[in-house]
C-alpha cells in the first residue's frame, strides 16, 4: 500500500459547546474515491468544508502529499469542488465558468483555450460553450460545475452531494460519468452523500459517520458483511436489530419473554444486540427444527423481487424479512399466521453492550 496522499488527523470542529465533527482520522490514497456517508447532521459536510478550507478546524490537521494545509485559505488549496447547488457564476458563459480557475492562475491564453476545449470535450458540452447557466438543464449545469472543477487539474476533487439535485433517472448515468472521469484522470476524490445507493455505486472505500464521529471505514463489502457496530449494520442494508441478554453462549433471551436460538456460540455474556439482514434469513414452519425463533406475521407486501414480511417476535420486537418470490408458485404468508425464522451462522452478527462485534467460537448445529 502506498503512503496516504491526503491525510486527515484528529480533525474536530466545535460550534459552541457541541462538536459537529469529533476527532476524525482518514487516509485517502492517490487516485481513490472516498465517500463520506451518513444521515444529515452527522458531520460529513463539515468535514468536507474543512478540507476545502471554508470552515476552520478547531483541532487536527489536514495533510496533502505530506504538506500541512490546515491554516491555508481556500484559494491556495488547489482543490476543485463541485457544490450541491452547482454554484455556477450566473453572469458568465459556460466557457467563462470553466476558465475562471485558469484565469485566476494567470495561465497563458493558448493554454487556457486548449484546456477549455479539452475539458468541454470531456463532459460533452463543446456546443454549449457560449451559453449562460440559466439556459442549461440541471444535468448540463452539473457537468459545467464538474468541468470547472476539473479544468484546474485539482490535487483533490471534492464533491458535495453532487447528484442530489438531479432527477432519479439521470442520477445513475451521471454517477457513472463522474466515476469514469475521476478514474480516467486518476483523480483523488472525496465525496459527501446521505444516499447509501449513491455511495455504494461511486466509492472505492466508504466512511460511515454518525453524530460527528467515524463509525467505520472500508469497502462496500466490508461495511455490509462486517459492520463494526449496530449503527453500521442498520444504516448499510437495513439490518433488523434485536436486543436481548446472551446466556449459555448460544441463547439470546428477549427482554419481554421468549428467546432466540443463535447460530454461533459466543464466549461473552450479558446484554447484546443481534443483527439480521432481511434477505439473509428465511421463513419456515413454526415447528421446523431449523427455526431459531418463532414470530407472528403482521403484514406481507409483494414488491416484485420479494415479499416484504413484517413479523413480531415473542417480545414484540418487529423485524422485516424478504421472502423471495418464485413466479407466484410459493404460498403467501397471511397476517396473523405463526412462522419460524431461520438463518445460518454466516448471516448472524452479534454486538456486545458497547457495540463491538462478537466473534462466534464454533457453529452450533441447527
Amino acid at each position, binding site marked *: 500500500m502506498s503512503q496516504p496522499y491526503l491525510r486527515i488527523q484528529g480533525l474536530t470542529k466545535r460550534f459552541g459547546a457541541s462538536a459537529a465533527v469529533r476527532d476524525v482520522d482518514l487516509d485517502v490514497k492517490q487516485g481513490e474515491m472516498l465517500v463520506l456517508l451518513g444521515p444529515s447532521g452527522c458531520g460529513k459536510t463539515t468535514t468536507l468544508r474543512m478540507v*476545502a*478550507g*471554508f470552515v476552520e478546524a478547531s483541532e487536527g490537521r489536514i495533510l496533502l502529499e505530506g504538506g500541512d494545509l490546515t491554516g491555508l*485559505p*481556500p*484559494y*491556495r*488549496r*488547489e*482543490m*476543485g*469542488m463541485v*457544490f*450541491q*447547488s452547482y*454554484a*455556477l*457564476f*450566473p*453572469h458568465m458563459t459556460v466557457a467563462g465558468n470553466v476558465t*475562471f*480557475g485558469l484565469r*485566476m*492562475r494567470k495561465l497563458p491564453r493558448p493554454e487556457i483555450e486548449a484546456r477549455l476545449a479539452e475539458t468541454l470535450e470531456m463532459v460533452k458540452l463543446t456546443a454549449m460553450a457560449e451559453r449562460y447557466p440559466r439556459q442549461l438543464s440541471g444535468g448540463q449545469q452539473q457537468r459545467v460545475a464538474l468541468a*470547472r*472543477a476539473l479544468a*484546474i487539474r485539482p490535487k483533490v476533487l471534492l464533491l458535495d452531494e453532487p447528484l442530489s439535485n438531479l432527477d432519479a433517472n439521470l442520477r445513475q448515468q451521471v454517477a457513472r460519468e463522474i466515476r469514469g472521469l475521476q478514474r480516467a484522470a486518476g483523480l483523488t476524490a472525496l465525496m459527501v452523500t446521505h444516499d447509501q445507493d449513491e455511495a455504494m455505486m461511486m466509492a472505492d472505500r466508504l466512511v460511515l459517520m454518525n453524530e460527528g464521529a467515524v463509525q467505520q471505514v472500508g469497502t462496500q463489502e466490508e461495511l455490509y458483511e462486517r459492520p463494526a457496530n449496530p449503527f453500521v449494520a442498520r444504516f448499510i442494508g437495513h439490518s433488523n436489530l434485536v436486543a436481548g441478554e446472551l446466556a449459555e453462549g448460544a441463547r439470546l433471551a428477549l427482554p419481554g419473554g421468549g428467546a432466540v436460538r443463535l447460530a454461533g456460540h459466543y464466549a461473552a455474556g450479558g446484554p447484546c444486540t443481534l443483527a439480521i439482514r432481511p434477505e439473509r434469513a428465511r421463513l419456515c414452519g413454526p415447528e421446523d427444527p431449523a427455526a431459531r425463533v418463532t414470530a407472528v406475521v403482521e403484514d406481507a407486501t409483494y414488491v416484485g423481487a420479494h415479499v416484504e414480511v413484517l413479523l413480531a417476535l415473542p417480545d414484540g420486537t418487529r423485524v422485516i424479512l424478504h421472502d423471495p418470490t418464485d413466479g407466484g408458485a410459493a404460498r403467501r404468508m397471511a397476517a396473523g399466521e405463526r412462522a419460524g425464522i431461520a438463518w445460518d451462522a454466516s448471516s448472524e452478527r452479534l454486538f456486545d453492550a458497547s457495540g463491538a462485534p462478537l466473534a462466534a467460537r464454533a457453529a452450533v448445529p441447527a
Partner: protein
Amino acid sequence: MTGAARSSERGAAHARVSLAGMLVWGLIALGVLVMAVPLAMTAYISLFRDAVVIFPPSGYATSWYARILEFPRFGEALGTSLRISALATLGSLAVGIPASLALVRYNFVGRGVLNVLLLSPLTVPGVVIGLSIYVLVVETEIATEVPLIGSDLVLVVAHLLITVPWVIRLCVANLVGLDRSVEEAAANLGARPLTVLWRVTLPMMRQGIVAATLFAFIVSFENIEMTLFLIAPGQTTLPISVLQYLEYRVDPLVAAVVMTQTLVIAGLLLLLDRYVKLSRIVS
C-alpha cells in the same frame, strides 16, 4: 332538485368571481389613471397660449417652451440638480454597497444598531433633517468662518442621508437572495477575497445596484423639504426654483419647465436602459 340548486350555486359563484375580476380591473384602471393624470395635465397646460391658466384656454402654443431660455435660472437649477443628484448617488453607492455587504455577511457587535442607524433617516421628516443640518452648518460657519451654506459639499452630504437608506435596503434585499456557495466556488478556484468581490459578488449584485442607483438619483433629485434649508442664491435645485417661481406667478411656463425636466430624466433612463434592462429590475 339538488342538481338545480347546485348549478344555481355554481352560477352565483361564477358571478362572484367575475364581479371580483371586474373590481380588480377597475382598481388597476383607477391606479393607472391616478398616476398618469398629473403628467398628462402638466403636458396639456404647458401648451396653453394664455399667460393665466384658465379653462378652457383661448388657444394652444408651444411658445412657453421657447421662453424657458429667457429664464436661465431654470437651466442653472437643472444643472445644479443633476450635479448634486449624481454626486449624492455615487456617494451613497460608495457608502451603501460596503455597508450592505457588512450587514449581510458579517456578524459583528453593533450590527443591529448600525442597521437601524443607517435606515433611520427614512423615519425622520425631511424638514426636521433640513433644519437640523442648517443649524449645524451655520454654527460651523460661525466657528470656522468657512462659507458652507449653498456649497455642493453640504448639499451632497445632506442628500446622502436620504439616499443611503435606499441603497442599503435594495442591496441588502439583493444580497440576501444570493447563493453564498457561488462565492465559495470562486475562492475554491483560486480567487482571493478582493477578486471574489470584484469578479463575482458585485456582478451578481448588479440588479440591486442598478435599482439602488435609480432610487438614490430620483430621491435626491426630487427632494424639496430638506434641500430648502441648504440652498443659497445662485445655488438652487430645480424643484425649488419651480416652487420659487410659483410664489409670484402661475403661468404655463412652469408646466413647460416640468415637462422639460421630465424629458431630460426620461432620456437619462432610456440611456441607462441600453446598458441594463431596467424593466427586469423594477419588476
